[in-house]
């Protein structure tokens, strides 16, 4: 079995982002970048499945500018076998990412595609579901537990009401929640070894996918700021303020 894992390079989740003054976007110069957090869970799960002998190959793929390769390199350092980097500039919309991934799936013929449930930059939560639609594959989204049973996958999903268990027929798409597993750190020797693993580079345009955005970003602004509050001295004062000043209890 072969598993393809989609990893996106995003601003590190610890960074307090800044909106550009001209309203055209977010400041990315000299900002720490990392793998989108749930994509680390996606890689970890694929590598774990390979370690149990149920998968033979884990391929990591990213779509983005030249430096997005670092994200693939990191996936190789934690156990992916090889990488694919599809070069594309600027914002690549989920639908475009899904169409590119569809082309790669046609070529690579994986049995499973693992992805994150949501990219923490655009917060779209779309790409996995879209890829599933394009391929006419089943989708197991927001996965916090995965079990492989022969030709089906049993997946526990995190939903608003609690947890849901479904079965999907392989080939299938899984989008991962952070609670799926505990991603490992890359050891120094493995980082060195990863440097020798192959990364194939392609251009989005070579794949015959139209990368033009259908959604125009008109402006990006800072959200309204909350006016600063006060510290209360003790619980009695807190309750008094909530009752008489804020009038919420």
């Amino acid at each position, binding site marked *: 079995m072969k598993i393809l894992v989609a990893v996106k390079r995003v601003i590190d989740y610890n960074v307090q*982002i800044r909106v550009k003054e001209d309203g055209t976007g977010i400041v990315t110069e000299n900002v720490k970048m990392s793998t989108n957090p749930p994509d680390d869970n996606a890689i970890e799960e694929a590598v774990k499945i390979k370690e149990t002998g149920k998968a033979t190959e884990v391929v990591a793929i990213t779509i983005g500018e030249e430096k997005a390769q670092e994200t693939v390199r990191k996936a190789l350092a934690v156990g992916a076998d090889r990488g694919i980097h599809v070069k594309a500039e600027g914002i690549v919309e989920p639908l475009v990412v899904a169409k590119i991934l569809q082309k790669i799936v046609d070529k690579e013929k994986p049995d499973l595609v693992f992805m994150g449930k949501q990219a923490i930059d655009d917060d779209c939560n*779309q790409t996995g579901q879209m890829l599933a639609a394009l391929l006419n594959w*089943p989708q197991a989204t927001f996965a916090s537990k995965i079990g492989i049973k022969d030709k089906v996958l049993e997946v526990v999903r995190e939903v608003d009401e609690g*947890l849901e268990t479904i079965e999907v027929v392989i080939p299938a798409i899984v989008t991962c929640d952070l609670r799926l597993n505990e991603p490992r750190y890359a050891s120094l020797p493995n980082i060195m070894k990863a440097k020798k693993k192959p990364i194939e580079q392609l251009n989005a345009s070579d794949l015959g996918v139209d990368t033009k955005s*259908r959604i*125009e970003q008109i402006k990006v602004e800072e959200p309204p700021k909350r006016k600063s509050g006060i510290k209360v001295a003790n619980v009695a004062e807190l309750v008094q303020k909530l009752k008489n000043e804020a009038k919420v209890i």
Partner: protein
Amino acid sequence: MSVLLIAEHNNKELRPFTFNAVTAASKIDSDLHVLVAGHNCADVAKAVSEISLVKKVLQVEAEHYENFLPENFATLVVKVSKNYSHIISSANTFGKNLMPRVSALLNISQVSDIIKVISPDTFVRPIYAGNAFATVKSTDEKKCITIRPTSFDAAPTSGGSATIEKIDGTEASNISKFIKREEVKSDRPELGTARIVISGGRGMQSGDNFKLITAIADKLKAAIGASRAAVDAGYITNDHQVGQTGKVVVPDLYIAVGISGAIQHLAGMKESKVIVAINKDGEAPIFSVADYGLEADLFEALPQFLEELNKLNTIQK
């Protein structure tokens, strides 16, 4: 052209956020139709027909719609979508699971999680965990949109009498199967719609200690929330998680206890009207969004809080 909203329900009742989605959808176009697909869901169709902003209800019944599997649902929505300019659902786990599948089948670039309708093609949506608001314009002819329910008021539940049209469904796909749902039932208000929410974080130290929070929630008729760290540690189930990857809440009062205030948590609660933070670390970032901050040990503060609340003999609803 008309707009189509996909109702979220459990075959018996509408999920409350459908009312907020009705408000959002009717801001795009007043000719609002609602799709109710499920199994034995006539009561739901009836309830939708009574919402005054709804002009027509499309009801589809089949066993394979019972558990809302997107493989079955998306083809149905695509089939129904022909006559509509916009396909809309709530940006909760139901809509997040379904809508992108519909969008891709229709070759549409979806606009997720809108908080404001500027015009039928232009919307505002939060990005980067709500640390920026993007105004975006969809250039697709037809639009697929998910709305953030807490950013729109709930529509009045009565006063309407829309026609209910029964329509045919699509075939079942056999590539996915529903096995079970583990729903945590409680008599408390729902987290998403509660007037007061009290949430605990890693500072609670154990699931057992959440009883300090439960006691106050009972007193205030509040819903209980949690940080991701508290859920990860197993103190409380995942349906309580507030934040970027959990639920968004906008109550009148949000009380954060033993929560540091990471941006991913703030993403889910910083629009609350009044925020209280109880934390022993005076430097915790949660204080930067708190209207009332109490720097204290929660194990002392919470019992005192309950005691003070008990002293107030009139607690208004």
